[in-house]
């Protein structure tokens, strides 16, 4: 088990699916206005990722190459529908808030990416750990972004008041911007900056360079 442990730990920060591979951004923007929705989305995605990795790894030797993507998507979509139905039955209010985004886990490149890149080639044990690790890596970013946005945007965490807002007679003026989608972009951008400053190996080589003459001409003011 110990030799597999890195499957679980590397996706947390070093190879985080959101900040390194920039996958799953759409939902990371949409569901992070509060910690509660971010947490629920994290649980849903991690569950789907673990189960899809397990199932696909289990049958990987018998998946015909020509239809492998369709098989993967079919399995993922079925799992997502089941999770969505479960949430509508047992966590109705949160599922109303998450609206379409649970269903959109199907199109989350993170899930298909792990199925195609890892579960198709590895035994069940490492695949589940890889799914769990990536799910937790995604969750970590979601919770961070959700926490910052909820705290600065509404002065609460998990709906519990932390900063008393001016409207309630306190001192805290909520930052309305934090409740809007661009704020998630800013926070994820800052996170990527921090992580890549610490782990410089993550910095990508530039795809092209400006010609030196352009630089000296001062084309940009």
């Amino acid at each position, binding site marked *: 088990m110990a030799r597999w442990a890195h499957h679980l730990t590397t996706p947390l920060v070093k190879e985080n699916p959101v900040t390194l591979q920039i996958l799953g951004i759409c939902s990371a923007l*949409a569901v992070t*206005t509060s910690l509660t929705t971010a947490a629920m989305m994290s649980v849903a995605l991690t569950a789907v990722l673990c189960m899809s990795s397990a199932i696909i790894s289990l049958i990987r*030797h*018998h*998946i*015909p*190459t*020509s*239809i492998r993507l*369709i*098989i993967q998507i*079919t*399995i993922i*979509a*079925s799992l997502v*529908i*089941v999770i969505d*139905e*479960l949430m*509508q*039955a*047992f966590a*109705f*209010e949160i599922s109303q808030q998450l*609206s*379409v985004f649970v269903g959109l886990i199907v199109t989350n490149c993170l899930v298909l990416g792990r199925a195609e890149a890892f579960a198709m080639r590895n035994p069940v044990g490492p695949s589940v750990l890889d799914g769990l690790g990536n799910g937790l890596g995604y969750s970590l970013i979601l919770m961070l972004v959700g926490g910052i946005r909820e705290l600065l945007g509404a002065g609460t965490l998990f709906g519990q008041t932390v900063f008393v807002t001016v409207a309630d007679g306190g001192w805290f003026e909520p930052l309305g911007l934090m409740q*809007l*989608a661009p704020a998630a972009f800013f926070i994820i951008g800052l996170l990527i900056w921090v992580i890549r400053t610490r782990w410089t190996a993550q910095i990508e080589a530039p795809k092209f360079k400006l010609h030196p003459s352009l630089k000296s001409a001062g084309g940009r003011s």
Partner: protein
Amino acid sequence: MPNPVSALFARPNDDTTKTVTIAALVAFVCAILVSTASVLLGPIQQAQIDAEQAARMESMLDTLPGMRQVMEEAGVTALETRIVDLQTGQFAPDIDPATYDFVAAATDPELSVAIPTDDDLASIRRRPLYAPVHLLERDGDLLLIVLPVYGSGYASTIRAMLALEPDLSTVAALTITEQAETPGLGARITEPDWQSLWPGKELLNEEGDIVIEVVRGQAQSVHEVDGLSGATRTGDGVTFALHFWMGPNGFGPFLDRLAEEGL
């Protein structure tokens, strides 16, 4: 001789027979899984939806000043539900309100009628023949009436409960009961801040025409309600739903009869 199942799985993965069989197997297992979940969880989900709608109705009553007290004096704890024949405007006492499904009736050919395209303001194509109304009366006088309305918004069908004062024009409350508009934009019609703009608005002008409108920007009169920025078509959806359901193809005949004869 090996048995046929292991023989099939022993075939190479690019074999056509195996490809088709695997595809069929995966599809079958997934279909079973999904339909089982749907059938098993359906009743629990429906109970959640019903409970939420009842809670919405309750909280709407709580927003109406003095309504609880009136209800207490009248000795009732909930509004009375009656079924209305939309065409004649008469009550239909032979239909049991407890079992009548307004939403399902809208797509049932026997219980609904097609709306002529020109009259279909709310873009709903068909409407049920009967509709439930919730009312509060005391000694035969109407105190409050709540009408279910719905119409197409930007991305979904918007359903709402419209509570009217006894003059049948003044809005007592409007509460959105179901929608799936864009989160953060159109979906903000569910927020109490927006719904609290409705009480006191007049649906009709002096001539009795339906003039209520969700406008862009700030409302200028009692016939206008502030729109939500970025949600013009959602606001239009609410406007058109109200125009349709207050009009001759909706509750119009019923409201006319109510104004003339009372309950």
